[in-house]
């Protein structure tokens, strides 16, 4: 399982080369599909190893050109990549709760997580099809410490008879294999969070 997870984030070879050999084990797709780019386009050699389906593959060249045109412009982000971003405003610290009981109410979350600090924002999306809770909630605290405490005290606990996991929602940078691997090496469980990094929400546009 650990390898499997590592593979999921394993697409950025730069500066992680040291780990390459280890990671390769048990990751059968890796050699064939190491890079995001090929996965997106579905073209080239990479798709050979994947089962492809859908009309989107029909006119790939045009579709890709269109897509590149749309996505090539600059995206606003926080300074996570070191560039001079747009005016920056950090709204708060957002955590993700997974394994939320399908009949949970906002109040239930409010009551439990409100203990760690004032909740600035709470999102509990419903499955439009079933009308039940989708299974996750996003909770925003004003202070880093509040969010951090909510994570460390609530992760892996039981909430409305169901085990929940609590982790940061946003990260300062891309997922790096090194971190993932290190975490997994000793603390893997089905839904355990991987990384406790500082998170931020996008600010101004």
């Amino acid at each position, binding site marked *: 399982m650990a390898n499997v997870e590592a593979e*999921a984030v394993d*697409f950025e070879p730069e500066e992680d080369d040291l780990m390459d050999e280890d990671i390769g084990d048990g990751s059968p797709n890796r050699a064939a599909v190491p890079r*995001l780019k090929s996965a997106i386009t579905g073209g080239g050699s990479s798709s050979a190893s994947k089962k492809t*389906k*859908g009309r*989107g593959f029909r006119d790939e060249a045009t579709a890709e050109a269109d897509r590149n045109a749309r996505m090539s412009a600059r995206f*606003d982000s926080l300074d996570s990549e070191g560039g001079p971003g747009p005016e920056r405003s950090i709204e708060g610290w957002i955590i993700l709760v997974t394994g939320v009981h399908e009949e949970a109410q906002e109040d239930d979350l409010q009551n439990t997580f409100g203990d760690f600090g004032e909740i600035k924002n709470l999102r509990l999306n419903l499955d439009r099809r079933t009308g039940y809770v989708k299974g996750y909630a996003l909770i925003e605290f004003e202070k880093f410490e509040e969010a951090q405490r909510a994570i460390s005290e609530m992760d892996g606990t039981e909430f409305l008879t169901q085990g929940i996991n609590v*982790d940061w929602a946003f990260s300062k940078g891309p997922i790096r294999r090194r971190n993932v691997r290190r975490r997994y090496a000793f603390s893997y469980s089905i839904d355990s969070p991987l990384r406790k990094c500082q998170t931020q929400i996008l600010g101004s546009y």
Partner: protein
Amino acid sequence: MAEGDESGEFYLRYYVGHKGKFGHEFLEFEFRPDGKLRYANNSNYKNDTMIRKEVFLTPAVLKECRRIVAYSEIMKEDDNNWPEPDRVGRQELEIVMGNEHISFTTSKIGSLMDVQTSKDPEGLRIFYYLVQSGVLFTEDYFTAPGKI
């Protein structure tokens, strides 16, 4: 959630748009394997400008996305019998999960009635609801009041 659903890489991209009186208007977002979530919303109506934002998600979020996608069973569907993209609009859903890669296209879906009367209501319904989940998830972060 099946064990296999946990495995392999994960990429998801959704696009909906059309070209018309106000130019090319569209909404697009993608979840990339490195955790980057990109969101673009271009509406020229009333001189709205293009919104392009990106943020990095933690592995925990990606995992939840993957769970939702796996649960929807969209990967078992096929767009063969879905309405073709037309002048009114185009939707694209591209997902890489494990060793499967789908890239579906269809027209805009105005309501569940469109789904019902299509040639593949079951499949299209899965698409419809999954897309709603995705839009909800991303819009929570990129268009919520106070966030812009």
